[in-house]
């Protein structure tokens, strides 16, 4: 008996949906194994997760709250990956977005009219994220250093720098010994919807999705990026300036992740402290892959992942299980996606190996 894999001759119909469903199924199965190993009934655990995330208005609003950063980091990764750049550094760009917005809120706001504080924080967050993403872009263009490693290593640098800020120069002297910045002034708070935590960042995420979809599918610039992604050589012959393209794409990707960081500190926490970055940059990779790198689909899969993450939080509060089950589900989701891709690309059968086809 052995595994036989053959190229599928006819393409499968509704491939995107089939792969996504298979991926989610795979993730739930893998999660079930982990639950069983801990003596927890998987059905019960998933019930807690689903009812916690989708069973109440508050849960739904919280999923919406998660969708904001997940959409933005998902767009960030998807945009870069469209031209074969791996932005694994959305996490660091997110952190810099928070730092930029935090600087605007804490140090620039006294010099600005109230109505300009939020726009300034928004711009500073986006600019700081973009700036951080320019480093791997420059190293890639200038020296050909793999952006996978540089973006990743820079995540650690960004986080250490942020810690330095809230432990050191930006620390609130009235903070009762807890490390963290002072609370941002009211003018830097993103307005919220009713009594929920759903904030104006949602509008930013929607706008970003629409703009990116338009840019990628309707403009010459977007066409050039897609050409580069399909065939770097064709792009070169077509006279596309790869250097400039790398810089603009990474800057825009960094700005999107930076906006996510700005949204979290100005919309949710109103301070910079430990825990503002629970890995949204890495989540963005999963969202982008599930969405098949199509910006228009990113919010939908941000909702799927947001449901998982809120569900994992509920699992922690209801059943005292660590919320890192969220990571297990995410990793399995990505693996499930790869498995589903294989299923749609090949026919897989078990049987005696009759030849070396």
């Amino acid at each position, binding site marked *: 008996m052995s*595994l036989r*894999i053959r190229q599928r001759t006819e393409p499968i119909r509704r491939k995107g949906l089939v792969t996504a469903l298979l991926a989610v199924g795979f993730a739930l199965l893998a999660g079930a194994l*982990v639950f069983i*190993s*801990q003596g927890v009934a998987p059905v019960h655990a998933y019930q807690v997760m689903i009812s916690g995330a989708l069973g109440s208005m508050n849960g739904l609003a919280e999923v919406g709250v998660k969708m904001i950063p997940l959409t933005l980091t998902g767009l960030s990764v998807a945009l870069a990956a469209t031209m074969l750049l*791996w932005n*694994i550094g959305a996490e660091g760009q997110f952190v810099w977005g928070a730092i930029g917005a935090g600087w605007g809120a804490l140090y620039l706001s006294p010099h600005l009219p109230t109505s300009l504080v939020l726009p300034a924080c928004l711009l500073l967050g986006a600019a700081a994220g973009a700036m951080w993403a320019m480093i791997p872009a420059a*190293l890639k263009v200038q*020296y*050909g*250093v*793999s952006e*996978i*490693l*540089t973006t*990743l*290593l*820079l*995540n*650690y*640098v960004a986080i*250490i*720098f942020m*810690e*330095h800020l809230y432990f*050191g120069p930006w620390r609130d002297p009235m903070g009762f010994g807890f490390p963290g910045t002072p609370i941002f002034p009211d003018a830097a708070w993103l307005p919220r919807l009713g009594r929920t935590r759903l904030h104006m960042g949602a509008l930013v995420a929607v706008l970003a999705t629409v703009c990116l979809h338009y840019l990628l599918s309707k403009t010459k610039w977007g066409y050039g990026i897609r050409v580069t992604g399909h065939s770097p050589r064709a792009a070169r012959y077509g006279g596309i300036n790869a250097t400039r393209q790398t810089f603009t794409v990474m800057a825009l990707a960094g700005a999107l992740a930076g906006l996510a960081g700005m949204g979290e500190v100005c919309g949710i926490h109103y301070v910079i402290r430990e825990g503002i970055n629970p890995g949204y940059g*890495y989540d963005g*990779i*999963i969202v982008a*892959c599930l969405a098949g790198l199509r910006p228009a689909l990113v919010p939908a899969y941000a909702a799927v992942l947001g449901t998982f993450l809120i569900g994992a939080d509920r699992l922690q509060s209801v059943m005292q*299980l*660590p919320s*890192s*089950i*969220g*990571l*297990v*589900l*995410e*990793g*399995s989701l*990505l*693996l499930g*996606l*790869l*498995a589903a*891709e*294989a299923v749609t690309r*090949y026919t897989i059968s078990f049987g005696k190996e009759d030849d*070396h086809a």
Partner: protein
Amino acid sequence: MLDSLAFIATIAIKSSIAVLFAAVGEVFAERSGVLNLGVEGMMLFGAMVGAAAGVAWGDPWIAAGCGMLAGAALAAVHGFFSITLKADQTLSGLAITILGGGLAGFLGRSIIGVRGVRFGITPIPGLSDIPVIGDILFRQNELAYVAYLLVPAASWLLFRTSLGLKIRAVGEDAAAADAMGVNVLLLRWACVLFGGMLAGLGGCYLSLAYTPGWKDGMTMGQGWIAIAMVIFSGWRPGRAALGALLFGALAALQWNVEAGGSELVPSWVLKMLPYVLTIAVLVLVKKFAASSRGGAPAALGTPFHRM
């Protein structure tokens, strides 16, 4: 002066072993043509399983063995996806890193802060009496000695045996190796599993020797640094060990400066140094490497399809 330099050197070696194990393992995986970006997750999972096994059985060697098996288990997942299903190696590796970190965090919750076993300092009789060198090299824990033996053994295997030749052939040109009768998939599987075992052992070094006990996220990116060191090394175990030592020296410097209370370099700058210098090393390699590939196996990252 000499005393404190010897002390720093001792710590440098101590701090380099985890990266060393992971990097040597990654050299094998990549030499066979499989990029494994899951090292960080394998180290975390190995560290947690090693610590848990240490708590359960009280024997550091059994614990390290369990940690290696844990690394190999995740490597098997990566092997299944990237070798058997021919999926995208970058994505499969990233998935392993996320999954490994999640599994370690979820399953390891009950042993956080539990005192388990650890590898103690074991001076080697005779050798440890050599002035200076003996103190630096031969008053370490047993896993460090394993690392000393591993590096020359790995170099010998890769460059002096026919098995090593086959591994390198598979990584350079899988189709040609296949035509020569080499079992490409089997060798890739073996190398990926071996790499996973060493990544798991690297994680165990952290949780059983360096800072005993399990803590969420305790690898702090050392898996990624190991991958960078493989590029730095030009895919050679000996130079990868050298790169790991460089990383260890930075960590030692950080300890020394913090312990000395010196204000010369702020501690946050020192904390960033391993990551920043790793990036600098990558740039230097690209700038000065003889070929544009820097010695990378030609088939690295490409799945093997038999035509």
